[in-house]
């Protein structure tokens, strides 16, 4: 019961807070005080109270997509092992998780094309291109963990009871790096996309949601916040598994550290975004190649460890 409570609180509060932390750290880097950390929550409440405007060209896809996407992400939060305190024991199969993420992408892309705006089309086209390059990296990182553990159920892989994985510090670390790099691209963060840009022509994620407003936009934003937490959560879990101490620690310590891990990665993102610039579109495949290389290292380790 306590577990369920902690889980529900963290899945509602952590997404906006993570984004709040990223914005706060970026503001401090720019010598500004910045908005309070709870500003994303206030933004969402504000959006809920606005009146909605939609394009006259849209079909049923446009509004239902945002409802479907947030439900998919809520389902995913129960399936992905992004914390150590998971209330329900639903088997989180890794291929299922990847394809549920793809499902939400499918709806996002269709909703972006729905209004028939040039920007939505640009964004959608770039989103699928990036996804295409990142997908093999994500799946191979997770598959090599699963292959070492001998199961495709991620809940079991991340359960801290699988002895086959206990000594694999390197594998966990590299998988964490690979997933983190991939999630920078999946979440449309800095080297791939600038979330604070003002120029529609260069945007990826923001271009896709130009037509959304009010409640609809609030749902889309919330979906994106949850996605940030889930993807950062899974890579921070990989890093935490690389620390031998975590395998001995108590449940409470693990839980607190996994929350802290997400916030730490969020701070890392903010630091990266303050220090680096957005890459040119044509240079992106080279950046993603790092994530793919990490995943190939993971595969090699997994193959060598299971030698018979």
């Amino acid at each position, binding site marked *: 019961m306590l577990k369920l409570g902690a889980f529900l609180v963290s899945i509602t509060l952590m997404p906006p807070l993570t984004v709040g932390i990223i914005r706060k750290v970026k503001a401090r880097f720019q010598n500004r005080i910045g908005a309070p950390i709870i500003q994303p929550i206030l933004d969402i409440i504000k959006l809920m109270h606005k*009146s*909605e*405007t*939609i*394009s*006259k*060209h849209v*079909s049923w*896809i446009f*509004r239902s997509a945002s*409802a*479907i996407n947030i*439900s998919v992400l809520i*389902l995913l939060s129960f399936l992905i092992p992004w914390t150590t305190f998971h209330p329900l024991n*639903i*088997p989180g*199969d890794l*291929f*299922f998780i990847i*394809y549920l993420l*793809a499902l939400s*992408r*499918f709806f996002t*892309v*269709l909703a972006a*094309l*729905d*209004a*028939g*705006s*040039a*920007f939505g*089309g*640009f964004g*959608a*086209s*770039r989103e*699928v*291109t990036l996804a*295409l*390059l990142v*997908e*093999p990296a*994500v*799946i*191979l990182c997770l*598959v*090599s963990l699963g*292959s070492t553990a001998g199961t*495709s159920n991620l809940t079991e892989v991340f359960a801290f009871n699988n002895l086959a994985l206990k000594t694999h510090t390197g594998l966990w670390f590299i998988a964490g790096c690979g997933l983190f790099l991939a999630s920078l691209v999946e979440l449309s963060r800095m080297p791939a996309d600038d979330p604070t840009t003002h120029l529609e022509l260069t945007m990826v994620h923001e271009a896709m949601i*130009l*037509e959304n407003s009010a*409640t609809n936009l609030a749902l889309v934003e919330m979906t994106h916040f949850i996605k940030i937490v889930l993807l950062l959560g899974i890579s921070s879990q990989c890093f935490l598994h690389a620390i031998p101490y975590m395998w001995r620690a108590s449940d409470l310590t693990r839980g607190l550290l996994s929350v802290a891990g997400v916030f730490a990665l969020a701070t890392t993102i903010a630091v990266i975004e303050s220090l680096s610039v957005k890459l040119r*579109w044509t240079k992106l495949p080279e950046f993603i190649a790092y994530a793919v290389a990490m*995943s190939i290292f993971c*595969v090699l380790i*997994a*193959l060598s460890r*299971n030698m*018979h």
Partner: protein
Amino acid sequence: MNSIHFTVTTLYTAACLVWAFGFVITLISDVTKIQIKDKFFSFIMMAGGITAIAGAVKGFCYKELFGYQIFPNFGLAPLSCQSDTLTGPFILLMGVITTTSALACPSYTSGLATKNERNLFYKLIFLLLLGTFLSFVSANAIAFLVCFEVMSLSTAGLIASDHIRHRAQRAAFSYITASRVATALLTAAFLWMQHISGSFNFDAWHFESSRTLPAALMIFIGVAIKAGLWPTHVYLPQSYAEAPGPATALISGLVSKVSIYLMLRLIVLGDCHSPYVIYAALALGLISSVWGVLFALVERDIKRLLAYSSVENMGLIMVGIALAMLSKHYGLPGIAAIAVTGVIFHTVNHGLFKSLLMLGAASIEKATHTRELSQLGGLARRMPWTMLGFFVGGMAICAMPPTNGFASKWLIYQGYFQLSFAQVPLVDRAIAMAVIGSLAFVGALSLACYAKAIGIAFLGRARSTAAKAADEGASGKLTGLTLAQLILAVICIILGTSASVCMHGLSPVLAYLTGSYADPSSLFPIPQGQLCLVGLILASSIYILVLGPKTQSINTYITWDCGYGPLSARAEETGSSFSHPIGRIFAQILQLDMVTTIDGKDRRHFPEQIRVETKMSPYLETRAYRRTLDLISWLSLTMTRLQTGSIHVHLLYVFLTMLFLVLLGITL
């Protein structure tokens, strides 16, 4: 023969007789003045289809072979039929696709001008159905080849329906060429096997010894050509695009499955363990899946797009078959069970959703008279039912949960995943990992491809007057064509949400093919149906509670245009621009070229005219096949010089030949 066998045999025979009756009616209508209504033919097709479904369902769980002979002797062997558990899923698929296409057929034939054209269409359809059905149930090689030929030739006839157009002629010719080569290879392989086993019966053939290797390879190549695997897929986009809509649903959903059936029946059931066949199947399957989806993505014609995506799916099925053979080779029954279930389930699923999408394309073509994506757009409002069907089909083919496509693709993933840590040589485990990586890549590409197809054709604004005036017919009510799509869409979702139950139904097939008595429903542990239900409740409650209150007070306005005023539909993303970023990454394979010319006095700052032209020429067609064809025509032209027409020169040839033969006789 017990009563169930008797019932199944009767039902199968009845289905054939019904279709044969339809064929005879078209002949009668040809010679007399009787006009037959479209609905009557459609009814006959459907009756046969439903009979076949009944027979397949009845006989699904029975493993024993049963069959009968029609003629005591048909040339070299009797024309005998048999049915076993392996034919069950295929006949079931055939029944469903036939029934739904039958609903759609009148929509095509009502547009035909003369009685003869209509009769010809139905005549070919009935021949196609008879040929396909009998290919599935034929018990020996001779019977199979005869039925296979009937099927291929009637398909070629359907492709040439619109034979006045140059494109249809070319398509029919390339289809015939491909099926000729395939039949030649299969015939050679069958004769080889008859020589080894002394029988034409499929049951008597085993591919364990190395003597059968050439036969197995020839069967595999024949199957690969017929299924449209790389590099012999080039005829597929042409022929699928030219055949009439409902016929394409049959051809893509059904005819391509006959080759998969043959592969399962002979190579997998015949215990072929040759690494040559296994790795050839794996390599060709993988290349086809990547190649097919890549070309589907950049394709501008919606039916050609679907055809290329068939190449991808045939590749996936072949990758699954390779896994089944590989795991049987290493003695891993668990993985073999997953692979075989995945292959059969994906074959059935692909038949269903590809027919669904093809009918959707037929519906679009009928309503707008174009298949070019650049001419479509905004059809979601004008054609809501087609949109719904195409949307579900697109989701299923991209393997999105909770559709059936996900369940079968998951099994193939899972099979390779388990191979990656099984007790097999390192090379095979590395291959398994590589396959998973490529499948993920193919999955992301197919998502891009179908997001493009749905997004460009149905969403946004109309890009042409034809698309603006598109009409499904029947003013919003269901027509035969849309009803057929909805039925298939519902089947796709039901098969997906109740995947475990469906797989339980596959257990006899599994036991037959792998000898494993595992319950396939335990192979798919994801509670897809329950999660889908939870997701649906969640999504609809969010829609009603969060978005719902605003629905009344919603403002509609023009799409964001940066304040320039309403932009025309030309400002929208087009199909080619959507796929351009991906096309640029794979420019080498796609031979994609973009030429930009800017004209004007001060060209840099005040251009008067900007022209951008993209060119794409498929690699194989231009580089390999075109050159081979050029070589052949060059050789033929050169050879004509030998035929001078002068009697003296020809006498010289005769003399030289005689001399050569005499010398040959002396030396041997």
